[in-house]
């Protein structure tokens, strides 16, 4: 079942075209990986999908769960079930993780016309999610991302994902800042959260992450669009041959 359909997407930043006709379909139950050299527009894609201001869509359409995604406000996209694990999560001093999560969970429930979550259920959900990702109670008590190490920030993103259980999660350079043990732990959490109803879009520069989260499809992006698609073996091939070779630049 189709979850998201991206057609001929063009995105400008500061009047400079970064995405130049990007196409991609993702069905429920699928894991897609987008790879490519730096500066090809991978992160721009992620930011444009979640609606970051200053990312101007000049052409194309994105249909998410049958609705026009590009018409929606930032928060509407999130409430519809789109989640971005940020490459650089923002530090928000003074806003405690717990207060933040409670507010977000309730915002979601309100959107679905559900009652606010009971404190008991909320704490259960927090416990389950934090155990899954392996974050400590101490982290939960602190302000959002404040003073977190690079790795802690990334874990915190996946913790939030586990809490919110989105339909489509975009993981932007998840492996940067994670040591190998944390990477394995986070990948394991993601594999546990994988099911036939949700989907993942993994944006990564390196193949390393894909050893632990095995994708169904691998796409190679260059200069604002997908230039080659294949299965998980494409990532392996890329690792051994390098981008230039794969993309036929040599």
């Amino acid at each position, binding site marked *: 079942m189709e979850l998201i359909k991206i057609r001929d997407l063009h995105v400008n930043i500061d009047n400079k075209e970064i995405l130049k006709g990007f196409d991609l379909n993702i069905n429920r139950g699928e894991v897609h990986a987008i790879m490519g050299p730096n500066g090809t527009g991978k992160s721009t894609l992620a930011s444009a999908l979640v609606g*970051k201001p200053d990312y101007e869509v000049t052409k194309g359409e994105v249909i998410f769960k049958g609705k026009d995604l590009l018409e929606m*406000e930032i928060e509407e996209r999130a*409430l519809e079930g789109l989640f971005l694990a940020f490459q650089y999560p923002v530090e*928000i001093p*003074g806003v405690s993780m717990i207060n933040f999560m409670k507010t977000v969970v309730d915002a*979601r429930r309100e*959107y679905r016309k559900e009652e606010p979550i009971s404190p008991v259920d909320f704490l259960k959900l927090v416990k389950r999610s934090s155990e899954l990702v392996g974050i400590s109670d101490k982290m939960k008590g602190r302000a959002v991302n404040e003073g977190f190490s690079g790795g802690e920030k990334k874990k915190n993103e996946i913790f939030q994902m586990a809490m*919110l259980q989105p339909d489509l999660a975009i993981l932007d350079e998840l492996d940067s800042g994670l040591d190998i043990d944390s990477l394995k732990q986070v990948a394991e959490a993601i594999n546990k959260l994988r099911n036939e109803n949700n989907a993942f879009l993994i944006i990564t520069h390196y193949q390393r992450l894909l050893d632990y989260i095995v994708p169904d499809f691998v796409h190679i992006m260059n200069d604002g669009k997908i230039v080659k698609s294949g299965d998980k073996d494409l990532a392996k091939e890329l690792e051994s041959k390098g981008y230039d070779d794969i993309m036929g630049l040599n």
Partner: protein
Amino acid sequence: MIDYYKELFEKNKENLESGLQLEQIRQQGLKDFVRMGFPGNKMEKWKNFSTKSIQKNRYELNSIEERTKLDFFSKLSGLESPNTIIFNNGHCSYDFQIEESKNGVIFGSIKAVLAKYPEKVLKYFNKANKQNLNGFNAMNSAFAQDGFFLYVPENIKIDFPVLVTQNYNIDSYQLINNRNIIVLEDDASCEIVQIESSEVGNKAFANNITESFLGQNAQLTINKLQKYLGNTIVIESSFTKQKSGSNYSCNIATIGGNKLRNDIHVKLEGTNCFANINGGFVLDENNEVDNNVYIDHATPDCDSNQNFKGILDGKSKGAFTGYVLVRQDSQRTNAYQSNNNIVLSEKANISTNPFLEIYADDVKCSHGASIGRLDQNAMFYLRARGLSEEKSKELLLSAFAMEVFKDVTNTKFKEVVSKEIENKLLKD
């Protein structure tokens, strides 16, 4: 205009003296007031606070002792204390005048305490506000009517926070001069929660002074909520003197205010003192708040900290002036000043002046000030998690302002302040 106050003084002299017998203090106050007059905008320290609107009104001396007890407690949610004193329009309410406990603590209206123990009060009256620093301080010395007096003997720790409430609600131009005195002997400790408010129709002008004396190793915490509605004009001056090893913490949450000035003077007179002065202000409409902190490091090995944060909306005007003076012999001083502000509307404006005047070399002093917008990256992050723009804004602003109260241990106070800030933000 000064002549008017001379007349006002003569007219009310007996009445004033019958309440608080101060004689020379009053005469000196009047003399200084006549000499100095109202501070003008040309004076460096009064650049951000115009006294014109005070000068144009002919204030009467408020002798209306309103005995009705206002329904404060509904607003206080959990701040109730066995040690409570209530002021209406500057006068102590009838059901509480003076309380003396077995361990020697004296707490009550300064009127009642002065009548019973004149020597106790006069020992401290105008000893921290020595020179009647400006016209308003002098005016207070001349016209002081009431206030609270708290005396904590050596080694005594008051367990419950002392609660002092003050509410102004007079629909004519009345002048209120309260004088509060807090004395903590060596090793004494206490916390005071002050809730100050006014009603929409209030026109009274309050010009109050609090003098605090901290003995060696004494610990004083003042947690203050200011929420003034209507045309209330308030000048709150405090003078604190600290002996060695003492610890003074003052946390002021200001929710609006038509015209409000806080003057906080701290003199560190003994070694190893700490003064920690924090303020958060949330302003909108035509609110005007001017915060001034003066810290005098008169001895070595002391630390001071100032942290003020402002949120300004509507046509509001905010100001912060932080002054750190490190005298020549005050080596190994650590002083920190910080003032960060968020301006939300086109018409609001803010001045910040973090001043350092340093005459000793072995010091670590720094300040940081900023004026800016809401962090757009944080806004995006919250919205990308599904929070509405309004909710994200409120969450960020509230966290921004509450940060200055991070060291406040009284969680009830923090809850009340947090609620008030949220309400004020939501109103916009």
